């Protein structure tokens, strides 16, 4: 196969010593990711209040195009947030320390350097913190449908079928996109692109000044997305508290990233090497022995989340040693589209999709009907097949399946 670009759903691990870093291999939505909370409620307890809950979530957490966040940060606040990620959010009263303990990198990339970020990126990011965005991003209230591995599920706080979970899928909004775009331009100017089969493959040596500047600006983008999800989860809890009366038991299972580059050690041809692992539409899937795995999951393996499309199941998996050997510790990140958005909008009517979902007891709330149409389930590959492949190949072992009850889509 000719290598003419980075696919969505790809991993490129490149030697840090004499290798490169490429924004196109990470994706524009830096640290697009998924966060999952477990709860003590059963579906029976939540369903009667579901509509009210979705309305409250929709009102608390801005979504869609052209709708800014609850607060517009000052530039100084923004720079501090970019340096500290979830830690910044925690210091301002969003969520609990336990959330950070259950986040990849504890929600804080210390290599982040906000001064390597352009004014345009800051201008795009300031009004959008604490917003869901549009497209395939969503909030979902789910129930556990089936548990495949009880012991691991219990370690993740997943106890029984019918138990309610809450998921959020979003990223670094316009900020991450601008960081990627800014550095693509700088790399083109410095290193050229005429020798590349696709302009998106532009790169810089990892250890060059520009490579390091991009890496550290990208880490600021990671922090933006972590802080964003931290704030959103805070408002999700507030919504439950308002409608149900309490948010007791809404504990974070984990937060995983699926558009990132990280410096990790892996075995290549029997030799341990330091690599810059680009994961674009791919989720880290580390087994129980990796030192990067958060303390609470040492001896278990990290949780991996593979969300389905709107109205279909999502999965909890656990990272494996096999993934470290086969895919630099990575697995899939979602269902993947099969039909274009325009095609989906032509093929499905949002009102009808929502009505059909309601017949199956799944409620959906979105800023626009077209938004529902473009995310209709038949536009995506079958998530069950995607997870089956991951499970069978050993890239991530299935732990539990989650079925949607209610969706707020951006």
């Amino acid at each position, binding site marked *: 196969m000719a290598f003419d670009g980075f696919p969505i759903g790809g991993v490129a691990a490149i030697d840090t010593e004499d290798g490169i870093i490429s924004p196109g291999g990470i994706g524009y939505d830096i640290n697009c990711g998924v966060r999952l909370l477990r709860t003590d409620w059963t579906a029976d307890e939540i369903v009667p209040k579901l509509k009210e809950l979705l309305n409250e979530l929709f009102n608390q957490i801005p979504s869609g*195009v052209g709708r800014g966040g609850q607060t517009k940060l000052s530039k100084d606040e923004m720079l501090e947030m970019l340096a500290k990620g979830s830690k910044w959010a925690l210091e301002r009263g969003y969520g609990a320390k336990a959330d950070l303990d259950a986040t990849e990198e504890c929600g804080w990339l210390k290599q982040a350097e906000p001064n390597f970020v352009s004014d345009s990126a800051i201008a795009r990011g300031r009004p959008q913190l604490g917003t869901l965005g549009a497209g395939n991003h969503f909030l979902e209230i789910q129930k556990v449908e089936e548990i495949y591995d009880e012991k691991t599920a219990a370690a993740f706080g997943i106890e029984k079928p019918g138990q309610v979970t809450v998921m959020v899928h979003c990223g670094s909004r316009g900020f991450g996109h601008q960081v990627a*775009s800014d550095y693509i331009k700088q790399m083109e100017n410095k290193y050229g692109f005429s020798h590349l089969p696709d302009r998106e493959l532009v790169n810089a040596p990892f250890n060059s000044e520009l490579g390091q500047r991009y890496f550290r600006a990208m880490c600021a983008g990671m922090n933006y997305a972590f802080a964003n999800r931290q704030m959103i989860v805070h408002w999700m809890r507030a919504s439950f508290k308002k409608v149900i009366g309490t948010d007791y038991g809404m504990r974070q299972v984990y937060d995983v990233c699926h558009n990132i580059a990280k410096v990790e050690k892996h075995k290549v041809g029997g030799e341990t090497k330091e690599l810059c692992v680009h994961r674009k539409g791919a989720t880290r899937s580390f087994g129980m022995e990796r030192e990067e795995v958060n303390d609470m999951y040492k001896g278990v393996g990290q949780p991996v989340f593979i969300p389905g499309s709107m109205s279909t199941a999502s999965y909890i998996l656990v990272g494996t040693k096999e993934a470290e050997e086969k895919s630099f510790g990575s697995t899939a990140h979602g269902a993947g589209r099969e039909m274009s958005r325009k095609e989906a909008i032509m093929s499905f009517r949002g009102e009808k999709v929502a009505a059909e979902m309601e017949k199956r007891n799944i409620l959906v709330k979105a800023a626009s009907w077209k938004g529902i149409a473009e995310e209709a389930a038949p536009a995506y590959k079958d998530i069950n097949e995607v997870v089956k492949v991951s499970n069978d190949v050993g890239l991530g072992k299935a732990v539990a399946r989650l079925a949607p009850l209610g969706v707020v889509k951006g």
Partner: protein
Amino acid sequence: MKYKYLPHTADAKFRAFGESLEEAFSNAALAVFNVMVDTNNVKGQVTKKIDAEGTDLQSLLYNFLEKFLILLDAENFFLAEVKKIKISGKEGSYKIAAEVLGDDAAKYETIGPQVKAITYNDMVVDNEKGNCFVQVVVDI
């Protein structure tokens, strides 16, 4: 025809046409916004100035269209009309200056996903005199 959308699995792809490169660039800007909103409904309430540069026509187009995404995210701006537009310079150093009209995005019902980035993926700038077109894939 000002522009037409082409099939693409994950993102939005379009061709924008014009007798001049300026017209094709203007129509490309409208095509970017028409992914999100019916631009015919957007009122020309506020005026914005756009300046961009590029070493070649592709980077000029990329940088020009990207300015609109910054305006959208930073100032909630939806485009209604490109009022004035001028491309100058030559290979190695192009410049574009435009004056555009639009309105606050929050006032309008959106029809589709948010355009998050311009890409170089499959980009074409065809500068044939009297019959120009540009092709762009935008990340949504």
